[in-house]
């Protein structure tokens, strides 16, 4: 396929002509901006780019992009996206989903698209609530969350999107915050570069139904002490003064938060991030403030052949295959 990019597109060139209809202050706006910027920076061809979504506030996303877009049905975007890539593996396909869309009704499809490693960027907007249907608890809502369906507080234990993705066998798992544009774009860029299914959880604020549920680590004032941005090969350090870090708990399969210079801890004690260590990714995914920082960035990135590559390896259509021959490749007889 030949694609001509007549001129370099700007982020706004990736915006469609449709009025954006999220609530004022919704975190989705920031994500929209970040994705438009990412696409512009990556210089992708809009006609080869497709956004496929389910149903939810987050899933309205495709309408606001000037690329191809398919707003499908609740939870089913992964199936649609898989079929699309089987029809045309050359397309660059993003799946946009929410915590309800992707982990409640669509949990199974997420599981399977990840295990199959279909080459997609799967972006889950996690606001820990059902926005579109007016504020019911979602599978990521915390115990005790009050909502129309849990007036006494939610009792079901929340799922960790990262744990689910790793449990499904995902090969790329990352995490970012809606309002941290720079970091979000870095993460999305890494996700795009990964061949195979890339899973990105974005903490997204829903000011209407679950305002500031992430404030313990998204609050900018405390961010240095409550966020740890991982980088492959770099020590797991954070803190206003850069002297805090994560180290292996001696003799145990566990980690702990430490301060360099305290209790004899030195720089060398700090664990170095290895994005190919799944056990580490799993552990980092469970750390929560205040005891730990919230760990953000590419937790796991260990690519293997994508589904598309495997499918292609099974062979393609032969140009010279005659149906007339093939249909006769069985016991036949001729009546004279």
């Amino acid at each position: 396929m030949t694609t001509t990019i007549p001129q370099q597109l700007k982020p706004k060139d990736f915006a469609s002509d449709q009025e954006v209809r999220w609530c004022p202050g919704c975190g989705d706006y920031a994500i929209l901006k970040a994705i438009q910027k990412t696409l512009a920076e990556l210089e992708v061809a809009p006609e080869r780019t497709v956004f496929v979504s389910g149903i939810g506030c987050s899933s309205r996303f495709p309408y606001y992009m000037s690329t191809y877009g398919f707003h499908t049905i609740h939870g089913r975007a992964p199936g649609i996206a898989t079929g699309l890539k089987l029809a045309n593996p050359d397309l660059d396909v993003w799946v946009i989903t929410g915590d309800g869309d992707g982990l409640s009704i669509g949990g199974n499809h997420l599981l399977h698209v990840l295990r199959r490693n279909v080459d997609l960027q799967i972006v889950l907007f996690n606001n820990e609530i059902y926005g579109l249907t007016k504020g019911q608890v979602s599978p990521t809502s915390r115990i005790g969350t009050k909502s129309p369906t849990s007036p006494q507080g939610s009792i079901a234990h929340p799922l960790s999107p990262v744990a689910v993705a790793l449990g499904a066998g995902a090969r790329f798992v990352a995490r970012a915050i809606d309002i941290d544009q720079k970091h979000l774009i870095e993460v999305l860029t890494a996700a795009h570069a990964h061949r195979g299914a890339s899973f990105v959880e974005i903490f997204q604020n829903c000011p209407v139904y679950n305002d500031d549920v992430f404030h313990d680590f998204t609050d900018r004032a405390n961010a240095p002490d409550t966020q740890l941005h991982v980088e492959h090969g770099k020590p797991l350090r954070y803190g206003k003064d850069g002297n805090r870090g994560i180290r292996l708990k001696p003799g145990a399969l566990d980690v702990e938060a430490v301060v360099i210079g305290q209790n004899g801890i030195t720089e060398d004690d700090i664990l170095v991030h290895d994005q190919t260590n799944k056990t580490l990714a799993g552990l980092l995914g469970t750390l929560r403030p205040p005891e730990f920082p919230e760990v953000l960035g590419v937790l796991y990135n260990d690519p293997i052949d994508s589904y598309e590559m495997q499918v292609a390896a099974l062979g393609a259509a032969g140009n010279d295959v005659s149906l007339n021959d093939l249909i006769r490749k069985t016991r036949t007889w001729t009546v004279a």
Partner: protein
Amino acid sequence: MSTTVPKTTDPSGSQQAREIRESVVVRFAGDSGDGMQMTGSQFTIETALAGLDLTTFPDYPAEIRAPVGTTFGVSAFQIHFGSVDVKTAGDEVDVLIAMNPAALKVSLANLSLGGTIVADTGSFSERNLLKAGYDANPLEDDTLAPYQVIPLDITRLTMSAVEGFGLSKKEALRCRNMWALGLMLWMYDRDLTATTAWLTKKFASRETLAQSNNAALIAGHAYGETAELSGNLVGYRVKDADLPPGQYRTITGTEAIVWGLVSGLRSAGLERLVFGSYPITPASPVLHALAKMRELGVYTFQAEDEIAAICSAIGASYGGALGVTSSSGPGIALKTEAIGLAVSVELPLVILNVQRAGPSTGLPTKTEQSDLFQAVYGRNGDTPVAVLAAATSIDCFDVAREAVRLATKYMTPVILLSDGYLANAAEPWLIPDLDALEDWPARQRTDPEGFQPFEHDPETLARPWAVPGTPGLMHRIGGIEKEQGSGHISYDSANHQAMTDLRVAKIANIANDIPEQDVALGDRTGTLALVGWGSTFGPINKAVEQARERGQSVSHIHLRYLNPFPANLASLLDGFEKILVPEMNAGQLVTMLRSRYLVPAKGLNKVTGQPFKISDVASAIDAALE
């Protein structure tokens, strides 16, 4: 591998004495491990090679591997062959080959009075009788008095035939089916050459097995000849049918669907067929067959469930391929939400339902046609789709092609109804020249000039198929109501009315693009019309044929198009005083006909998991004409 069948077989020596039959139903029945399917298939080939018309129906046990000797472990293969047009697998069995007591027990119900039973006495041990639930040996009391019993110790006869090949006892016993086949081939005056060649090929890597099986085959055949000479057994002759000349193969409904889809793909000029499916009885074999057709551009996808399966097909159609999905009733139920999406976004999609007996899990291995309501009405909203049904195994080919044509031309889901009977039943098929079939290239939009994703073609009412990857056509679609033309989300009242009307009109309009309905048999007016659809074609057609021979004023109308109905159906039905609708359900087509045409049609309903018998239909004709 093709053999030429001489137009007439010259009767040779012993054959002159043989009784002549027009058509015969033979049923091979034994334990799952007895190789009955293979035996039946081979008998079929020899029968086809002899130039006869035929229909076969394998009858598998519901269990994967039931314990040996039990009634629920019985596997049978039925073949109906004749010099005349054969359209069903046979109302009643003329000759039953029972390889053990359980096989005898479960097959008796369908044996014609006076029918022949060839029973392997060697397998009628006390243990086997007990397993089959017999208190006493039915070969030794008067249980079988209404039939002609030919007790033969096939076990012993086989063992001695294969002596000297050094087989284990188990291996030797496995040759029993070839002995029985040999006998039946003798009985119907068939050749052994093709079977011998097949054995050689099949056991190419184990020559002893080829030889011993062949020895058993020949022994069975020879046994017949000897017994005939001694007057203990009678051979028959069935003249060849007057089949049109050309190259033939047998084809099941499953195979015909597969070839129909692939041929449709070519006629539509599309490169890829993406088949998203999830295994379910009796639909899985279509997936299995397509999984081997990558070289033809077929991409099969075993999804995690039926919902993902249909969604992958929708995604594929969105991506410009031909999206197809398949299942049986319970799985189709899961797809109904997504079918609504496909209707709403107006994408081509073929949905195959190989129906089985319901409700719920029902009887997965039994046939029924009780998903018509689901196909026509089974969605939320006003959500019309085209619905087609295949009449015979061969017809599956044409109907599958037609489903592809309509789906791509009208940008619509098309539901294709088959059933468990058709899926497995085989018929001889005069193979068409696939390159000579009509082409109807699907149009995909590439011109950005004036492009509107939901602007509808004035003739077909189809929207443009604008495929991701095409420069300049970027647009967004979704399941929310769309503004006519632009396709933007629209909550406008008048627009929703217009779009609903359009969706209804688009499907209704297909009536102008399909053949006028004709009678399948009989006059276009008369006292009684039998209106059928799907796999009931055979028994209805035969019953009408026989009724007409008896001078009854009855015609057969068979519907391939169930939504929309052909445009002239009203006037055709008008020509009859009475309408009877035989269906393997509690009355579904009959309900649709009554509401559409306000005709006092009556149902003839059978829900036993079994096809109609010709006699079922015949009695109903008599009753209707009384």
